[in-house]
């Protein structure tokens, strides 16, 4: 018996919760970025599970768009981190508070 839709959605929810907790915990900018990617993958799993359940290709095409957006975000985000690291020694986000006040 193929696992039901609820199993896939529960797995997706668990991965999303773990990713959200990671974004809160991590002090490293790259660690936070990796937990954001984990959350995006959880949502991808939801889309593919629903696409299988309703036999609609829209879900899988949206997964393709999400992956492209994640790749673009990776390029620009890591560029920001490198540009940030040139002026300061650490990528600790607690030290990045010059926009305050």
């Amino acid at each position, binding site marked *: 018996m193929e696992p039901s839709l609820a199993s896939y959605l529960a797995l997706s929810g668990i991965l999303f919760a773990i990713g959200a907790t990671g974004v809160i915990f991590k002090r490293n900018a790259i660690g936070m970025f990796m937990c954001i990617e984990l959350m995006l993958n959880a949502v991808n799993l939801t889309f593919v599970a629903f696409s*299988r359940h309703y036999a609609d290709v829209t879900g899988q095409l949206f997964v393709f768009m999400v992956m492209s957006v*994640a790749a673009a975000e990776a390029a620009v985000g890591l560029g920001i981190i490198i540009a940030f690291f040139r002026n300061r020694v650490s990528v600790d986000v607690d030290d990045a508070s010059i926009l305050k006040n």
Partner: protein
Amino acid sequence: MFVKTYHFLLLTSHLIKMATTALFFVFAGLAIACALSTVYHRNPLYSAVSLIGVFISLSCIYVTLAAPFIAAVQILIYAGAIMVLVIFVIMLLNLDEDKPYRKLNYLYALGGFLGIVLLAQTFFIFVAVKKAPQTPVNTDETVGKTLNIGANMYTEYLLPVEIVGVLLLMAIIGGVILVRRLSQPELTLIVNNELDRRNEGDEKDDYRIAL
């Protein structure tokens, strides 16, 4: 004889369905373990390798969902391009481990509590599924095939694909501009008419474009 073949095929298909369920739970457990490892480790390189493990197990789950194109693209793009880029950056910047909070230990407990609350909310899905109309899984497997996805990409979903192209162009331009060092001399494009005869004082009429 014919009945024996029928029984054999029935048993095999039943075993394959059981194997699908067992494989799903194996890969789901692997994905959750790798995700917990990503969040737990303070060294960003360990987190990156654990995240690659998550992506590969998710790709296997996509195969059990009859989505072979998405499974292949997941390995290609996520594990093959994005994580390689992340590992480049980690090794380029030579990042140290995260230092744990000393004075703010209660924040770990608060974050963990919020995470558990979010996790408890996801188990609402089992309640919601019981209330939803029980349509059976549509076992039409042509949905995930590459031919079908390609046909839809070029006919019905052409606009999103083109917009994604523009988005990737924006990302390329943004990436190039972000890592530009301003102390370096800018590129200067001189537009002039090389084929015309030039005098000495004509250089002030040239166009200069600074990139």
